[in-house]
């Protein structure tokens, strides 16, 4: 049986749902966008115009749950890397939301550059479990208004995966769509293939932004999937109990679901969660805590309760540098998500609470993901795995090393082969240079970056993307 961890009982899921409905109906949700408020009102919400608050009845939630698609595909730039949701095994989202990079050569923490974005894309592309990439964040540059476009287009150039981004300004949309048409060879294919999706964070507690919300409503006709990503922080922007923070985050997510389904029924939505817990000593937002993953895993179970595809925050750490804390927290915040069946886990690549990109961490996180995914597969009780005949053949004493079944199984998925762990004897380990997990990860990064990109875009497409970026620089000055 596959290993299944359960965070919420059936009864608890119903309680979270009931609490969410109660929050939506009795407290309501504030919309800073007049357009959004009107959509809510036109569809049956009780709206207080002055306060900007919509009280959302349960029927609207039910209606939205009916029209939200239960499955869809996040297209990869390379169709072989398409991500069909829901997934039978957990996939991983490269977390490059942060602003800083740990310089690969010097170890210095500095602002991120476009080159860091591209290097991270190249490294993540070579990881087996990778599914989706988030572009990096850039502070500097002569053309700050076209930074986001540059990062997205370079992500397409350097990664064969689906690109997901927070989306800043409506003016950016035409450039991104033109780029996708250039990559896919036709405008029609853009809607169809869905190479790009966007992240929508509600503003805890219970607020929807104005500008960002309008921008998402503007682009909804393109049918780009939207990752709904509430981030209530239990103890600061969220109530100080896991139960209520989960319920409030769930209510925020349901209110987004209602908004986008009412605006455009059938919009593909990923029901995500990136809750945090408060570091009471500093007020900081924690992503590497057990409470964080209990909440995001619970919200993942709520997504499945509603039959919706999901992305949960996990594989995260609050450590400032690579090392034991990073590994422990990332393992801790990945395992429950994988064992409870999350479609996608967003987190690999980052340290410092999603703030610092570290290239070697991408490789370490792949190992963490591999270990967790292996645990999820559990023990195979298929008849084919019943090796009674071998036991009979070898009999008491003897060994199984020469059996055909051993030869076949030693490279099968039943036996996970770690890429970074050392399993040599002490002496051999010393002879081999006393390697550790991170030094092996660094070697792998060096190797990837030293070899040419495996799946580059054709030169003429790159030419077109360069042209689009040049135009964006000019026009968005």
């Amino acid at each position, binding site marked *: 049986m596959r290993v299944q961890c359960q965070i919420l009982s059936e009864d608890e899921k119903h309680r979270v749902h009931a609490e969410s409905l109660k929050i939506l109906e009795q407290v309501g949700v504030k919309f800073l966008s007049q357009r959004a408020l009107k959509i809510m009102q036109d569809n049956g919400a009780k709206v207080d115009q002055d306060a900007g608050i919509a009280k959302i009845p349960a029927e609207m939630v039910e209606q939205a749950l009916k029209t939200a698609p239960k499955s869809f595909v996040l297209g990869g730039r390379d169709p072989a890397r398409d991500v069909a949701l829901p997934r039978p095994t957990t996939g991983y989202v490269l977390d490059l939301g942060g*602003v*800083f990079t740990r310089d690969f050569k010097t170890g210095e923490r500095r602002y991120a550059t476009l080159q860091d974005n591209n290097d991270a894309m190249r490294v993540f592309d070579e990881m087996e479990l990778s599914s989706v990439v988030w572009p990096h*964040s*850039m*502070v500097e540059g002569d053309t*700050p208004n076209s*930074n*986001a476009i540059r990062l997205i287009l370079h992500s397409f150039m350097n990664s064969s995966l689906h690109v997901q981004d927070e989306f*800043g300004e409506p003016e950016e949309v035409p450039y991104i769509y033109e780029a996708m048409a250039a990559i896919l060879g036709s405008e029609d294919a853009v809607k169809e293939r869905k190479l790009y999706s966007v992240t929508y964070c509600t*503003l805890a507690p219970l607020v929807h*932004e104005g*500008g960002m919300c309008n921008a998402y409503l503007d682009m909804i006709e393109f049918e780009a999937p939207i990752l709904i990503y509430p981030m209530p*922080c239990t*103890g*600061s*922007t969220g109530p100080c109990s896991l139960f209520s923070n989960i319920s409030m985050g769930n209510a925020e997510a349901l209110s987004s679901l209602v908004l986008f389904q009412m605006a455009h029924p059938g919009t593909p939505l990923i029901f995500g969660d990136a809750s945090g817990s*408060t570091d*009471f*000593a*500093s*007020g900081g*937002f924690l992503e590497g805590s057990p409470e964080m993953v209990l909440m995001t895993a619970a919200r993942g179970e709520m997504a499945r309760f509603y039959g919706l595809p999901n992305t949960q925050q996990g594989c995260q750490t609050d450590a400032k540098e690579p090392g034991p804390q990073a590994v422990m927290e990332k393992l801790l915040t990945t395992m429950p998500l994988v064992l409870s069946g999350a479609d996608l886990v967003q987190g690999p690549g980052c340290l410092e609470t999603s*703030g610092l990109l570290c290239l070697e961490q991408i490789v370490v996180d792949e190992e963490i993901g591999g270990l967790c995914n292996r645990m999820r597969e559990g023990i195979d009780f298929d008849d084919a795995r019943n090796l009674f005949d071998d036991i009979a053949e070898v009999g008491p004493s003897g060994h199984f090393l020469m059996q055909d079944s051993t030869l076949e199984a030693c490279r099968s998925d039943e036996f996970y082969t770690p890429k970074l762990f050392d399993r040599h004897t002490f002496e051999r380990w010393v002879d081999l240079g006393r390697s550790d997990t991170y030094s092996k990860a660094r070697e792998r990064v060096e190797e990837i970056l030293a070899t040419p990109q495996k799946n580059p875009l054709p030169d003429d497409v790159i030419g077109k993307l360069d042209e689009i970026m040049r135009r964006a620089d000019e026009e968005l000055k």
Partner: protein
Amino acid sequence: MSIEDIFQSILQLKRGEIADLVQAEIDAKTDVGAILEQGLINAMGEVGNQFSEGRLFVPEMLRAAETMKIGLEVLRPLLVEADIKPRGTVIVGTVKGDLHDIGKNLVGMMLEGAGFTVVDLGVDVDPKAFLDAAGENRAQLVAMSALLTTTMPVMADCVGRFKEANLGARLIVGGAPVNQDFAIKISADGYSSDAPGAVELAKNLVPA
């Protein structure tokens, strides 16, 4: 009854007791300046120290600040009479385009605890609003917060406008993506990576 009791009531988060304790000291004709300095401000100084050392948690620090404020309200009419001014006025806000406010709130509350009058403009504050508020309130200090790469340039814009307007207020910056180099680059008067640091900075830039 003594000033020490007032000091202790803040450290012990006794919100319900402080008003009576302060009133008792006033009735006993204790010097109001002493009640303010040795009772209220020193207690918040100690709270700040304990918080910086990680011994006090944020909700406790906030309750202490609230307790202090209750005491201050009782004292305020007498402070005005005795012409004792608060430490200085600080405008705080998260810059235009940015809605992150957890860090900004902490900074504001700690500054208040340290005796500053804090005018919190909230989030998504445009440079003109900072400028207007600083003028209206004759602020000595403006503390800006930004959490997004896309909103950091607003800080530079703000610094430029303040220099132009020559209001005399000093500008300090903070927020996760901001660092010392950035602060120097945009000619801000200071940077701090956390809330206790912002209080230190404010104390240095606005001496009592």
